[in-house]
C-alpha cells in the first residue's frame, strides 16, 4: 500500500487486490477503514466507504482475478476508484439489478454471488460511474460525500 499526502488536502491510498486468494479478499477495505478512522471521519461515512469498497474488491476477485484500488480523501468527499483488467461487464443495466449474478456455485457456497454487489455499491455511495469494455476490463469510480 502507498500513502501520499498532498498539502493536507488530499490523502491517497493505493492497493493491489490479490485475485488468487478469495479468503484474503477484504484486506484493502479493512485497511482503508482503519486509515479513515485515524483521520477522524464519521463512523457512517467510514461504514459506507468500506462496504462499497469491499463489494468492489469481492467483484474483482470473483470476476477479474484481482485489480487495483485507489482511495482519495478530499476535504469534502472520499473517492474510490477500482480498476481491473478482467472480462468486462456485458450488460451494465442487468448487472445493476439486485439478484442478477454470474458468479459460480463455488463462490455462492461461500455466501457471495447474491447479485447484490453492484447494487450495494450504488446504495452506499453518493455517486457511481462504471466504465467497462468487454475483454479489456472495468473501472468503477464511487464518491461518498462528507457533508
Amino acid at each position, binding site marked *: 500500500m502507498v500513502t501520499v499526502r498532498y498539502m493536507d488536502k488530499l490523502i491517497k491510498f493505493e492497493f493491489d487486490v490479490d485475485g488468487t486468494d*478469495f*479468503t484474503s*479478499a*477484504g484486506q484493502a*477495505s*479493512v485497511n482503508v*477503514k482503519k486509515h479513515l478512522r485515524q483521520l477522524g471521519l464519521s*463512523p*457512517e461515512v467510514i*461504514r459506507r466507504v*468500506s*462496504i462499497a469498497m*469491499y*463489494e468492489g474488491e*469481492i467483484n474483482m476477485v470473483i470476476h477479474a482475478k484481482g485489480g487495483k484500488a485507489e482511495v482519495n480523501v478530499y476535504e469534502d468527499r472520499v473517492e474510490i476508484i477500482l480498476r481491473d483488467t478482467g472480462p468486462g461487464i456485458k450488460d451494465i443495466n442487468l448487472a445493476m439489478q439486485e439478484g442478477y449474478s454470474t458468479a459460480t456455485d463455488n463462490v455462492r457456497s*461461500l*455466501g*457471495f*454471488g*447474491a*447479485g*447484490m*454487489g453492484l*447494487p*450495494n455499491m450504488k*446504495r*452506499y455511495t453518493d455517486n457511481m460511474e462504471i466504465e467497462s469494455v468487454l475483454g479489456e476490463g472495468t473501472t468503477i469510480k464511487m464518491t461518498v460525500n462528507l457533508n
Partner: protein
Amino acid sequence: MKVCELKEKFGFAELNIEDGQREINGVYCGDLLSWVMGRAKESNAWITIMSNVNVLAVASLSDVACVILSEGVLLDDEVLKTAQSKGINVLSSPYPTYETAVMLSKA
C-alpha cells in the same frame, strides 16, 4: 443488551470476545454475505450459519456488535485466529437461527 450478557442469559458459547460491553441494538439474520452487508445495521447482532473467513470481513466492515453462529456452528482454528486478530465478537448458539433470534427479541 450487551454482548457479554448472551452467554449468561442464553448459554451461547463465547468463541471470541473482544468488546463484551458492546451494546446490541437489534438483530439481523442472513447467510448471503452481500445481502447482509447491505442490510445489517451497525451494532446489530448478526445470526448466521456461515463460518468462513469472509464472515469476519463482513462483520468488521458492517460494524455489527457480534456474530452469532447458529445451530452450534463453530469456527475453524484459522478463522478463530483471524477473529482474534481483527477483534470481532463471535459467539455460537446451539439453537437454529429462528429460535436464536426469538430469544434475543424477548430479552
